[in-house]
């Protein structure tokens, strides 16, 4: 039993299923059960990736896409965070702003694509605008929630110990809201890639989405699938980075130190 259990539960356990799926996919493609015109085999996809890497194009595309994604994240996330802090702290600001923001939130931001194309054309601004809009709400909502859920006992303590002004924000408000803000950031990263993929697929002249749409026109399915996998990897990487940040910034919290 013991060796079996060791095999069943170890640090590679999460990878069993994906590896198995890829192996089955390869075999099915190789023996003709799936037409390579429907879906290229994993090896073909890997070859496409290698040739793109050799020519260097792929790095340019990744760079273009990542740049858009992060500029959008910084703008949208920054505005969301500031508005979240203001609305979380001042009920009067919340009364003025929150219901309008909730109204906008309920419009799917991707529904604005036709409008955004008319406003900004199909260049960078349009994509960055959409990404910023996509990441704004998760960060805004979670910042407000984080500030509202700070222990009132700590706020009273801050009063007794004369923590005022900037020190009050630095010592109490920001660290108190941080775990919530980071949850918002992880959601935002998901929205960030989603929005970017859609925006790049509809209109772009560089980036991963552009590469995929271009490949579609030449029926290069291997490159299309490679682009999809690339998005998956980038998404996973940014989530891991956010998780790492969580563990580093919240190391005081016993709930985050384990696993």
């Amino acid at each position, binding site marked *: 039993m013991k060796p079996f259990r060791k095999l069943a539960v170890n640090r590679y356990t999460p990878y069993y299923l994906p590896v198995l799926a890829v192996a089955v996919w390869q075999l099915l493609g190789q023996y003709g059960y799936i037409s390579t015109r429907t879906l290229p085999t994993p090896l073909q996809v890997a070859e496409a990736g290698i040739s793109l890497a050799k020519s260097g194009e792929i790095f340019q595309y990744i760079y273009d896409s990542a740049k858009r994604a992060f500029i959008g994240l910084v703008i949208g996330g920054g505005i969301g965070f500031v508005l979240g802090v203001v609305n979380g702290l001042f009920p009067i600001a919340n009364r003025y702003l929150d219901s309008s923001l909730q109204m906008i939130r309920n419009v799917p931001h991707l529904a604005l694509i036709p409008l955004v194309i008319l406003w900004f054309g199909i260049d960078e601004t349009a994509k960055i605008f959409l990404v910023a809009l996509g990441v704004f709400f998760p960060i805004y909502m979670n910042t407000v929630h984080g500030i509202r859920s700070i*222990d009132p*006992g700590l706020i*009273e303590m801050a*009063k007794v*110990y004369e923590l005022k002004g900037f020190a009050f924000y630095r010592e109490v408000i920001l*660290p*108190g809201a941080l775990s919530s803000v980071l949850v918002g950031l992880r959601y935002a990263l998901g929205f960030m890639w989603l929005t970017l993929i859609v925006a790049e697929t509809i209109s772009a002249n560089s980036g991963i989405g552009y590469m995929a749409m271009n490949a579609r026109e030449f029926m290069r399915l291997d490159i299309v699938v490679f682009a999809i996998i690339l998005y998956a990897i980038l998404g996973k990487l940014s989530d891991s980075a956010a998780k790492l940040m969580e563990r580093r910034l919240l190391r*005081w*919290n*016993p709930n985050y130190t384990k696993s």
Partner: protein
Amino acid sequence: MSTHRLGARLHIQSAIKRFGEQEVLRGIDLTIPAGQFVAIVGRSGCGKSTLLRLIAGLEPPSDGELTLDGETIGGHHADTRMLFQDARLLPWRKAVDNVQVGLRTRSRERALDALSQVGLADKANEWPGVLSGGQRQRVALARALAGQPRLLLLDEPLGALDALTRIEMQQLIERLWLEQGFTAVLVTHDVSEAVALADRVILIESGRISLDVNITLDRPRERDGGFVHFEKLILDRILERDSSEAPRGKKLSYSI
């Protein structure tokens, strides 16, 4: 700490506090001389914590006046520090940084000094989350005393601790009070704790002071006959075992 500053003198004159319709404090008159250790006891809901919050300046009185060394208390006073029932440490700051919060100079050495006074010098770099309840409360005590307050308010600070830790904390508080000479006001529902620590015990019932006794026992206090005498005196008054007590008072205390 070499610079001994005397405690503050507290004077409360017909303080009244209402929350909406309900009158929680119905006219409190109390003078606490500098350096005295006063314990306020009473049933839960009698208004003792509210009185402490008025003294701390966390809430204004609805009527009457509170003065500290002749100065009216309006808002929080820099010489006043408060120890809460829950330690209220910043969980994202290490123990020593939490103590630094209590120092206007934010001096790290003074903070370490204060920590060693409560016997926690070796825990300076621990997160509050890994400390025990008693240790957290000691860090909070170090934070309160680091700034050398002239008035220390204690709002049932030992209520959540186990019996042994509690006795240790009582001895610690008594020792630091004797060393530093601040005025102390302790709110508690534990009569024996009040007798063990205080120079003077005040009983609050239905928002009024109904008993004010000086505990004339030597320090350190032994749980001997004299101790039991004072404990019984106060407990009997709270539980109204004394037959001469008017039944009207009884009714009142239960209606709260």
